[in-house]
């Protein structure tokens, strides 16, 4: 074996960090898609004039409510009038 196989050591570490980097980029793309979907949902919600009061109830029954403040939680505060009255 050559004594100073340093370039292999760096190659190994480079692969590790590159893998992590790619993983995080994929995660970011996934979150970008979800943000996009939330945005379209909000548009559909605002333009549908009769906000059905059972909207909040149907959604809250399907997931327990009090969410910890996750950094990637995309609960943008709704400025529009009709959607903000619902508290999860």
């Amino acid at each position, binding site marked *: 074996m050559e004594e100073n196989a340093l370039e292999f050591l760096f190659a190994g570490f480079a692969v590790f960090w590159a893998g992590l980097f790619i993983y995080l980029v994929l995660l970011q793309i996934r979150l970008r898609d979800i943000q996009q979907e939330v945005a379209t949902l909000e548009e559909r919600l605002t333009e549908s004039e009769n906000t059905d009061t059972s909207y909040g109830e*149907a*959604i809250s*029954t399907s997931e327990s409510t009090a969410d910890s403040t996750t950094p990637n939680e995309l609960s943008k505060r709704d400025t529009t009038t009709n959607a903000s009255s619902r508290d999860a």
Partner: protein
Amino acid sequence: MVESTVAIETNGLTKRYSGIEVISAATFSLPKGSKTALIGPNGSGKTTLLGMLSSLITPSAGEATLAGHSLTANSQSFRREIGVLAHRPMIYEELSPFENLQFFARLYEIDEQDSRIEDLLRAVGLWQRRQAPAQILSRGYHQRLALARALLHRPQILLLDEPETGLDPEGIRLLDELVLRAPDITVLAATHLIERASSWSDGVLRLERGRIVEATAKPSKTDAPPKIEAPA
């Protein structure tokens, strides 16, 4: 076992598909021998409700008892008491009507199978075509074969999902005679033919967006049957 007068009883039967409540807290009870029409617009959950009652779909919450057997126990004897006629005929098209009934008769372990099969095939008018592979028979005959299969093991309860689909007038007459007017069978049938329903049914269950909005034991002949709010 005391002879209970209730054939089907549900308590808070619910089915959630990925968060959306397809059936929410259905609670009703149907007396033995009663004929109930299950009506409601498309997508109101009729097929899911029948699917849960026939133990094909596991409920997300709540329970039900059919013919004295609890649904959640899901014992095999429970399935001997119910006959099901679904949207599609659910028969083997490569087998002939006789072979289809023979196969299911063996599964249900019916005694003197051949005579029972012959009676049923004659009753639904398939006796002449009993050896032909089911493929070449028309959709109506498939539905009649499925009807014969549902009655094969003399169930106490029949769950029908739009039984008239694909049946010609003669077939519908058979359906009425064999099932809808048969004295001792309890029937819960989802149907769109509301006006026909009043001719055979002595009760109505109306479903709207997964909720039982009307459960009348005796439908009055006026077109607006009294509205009884089912306990939410």
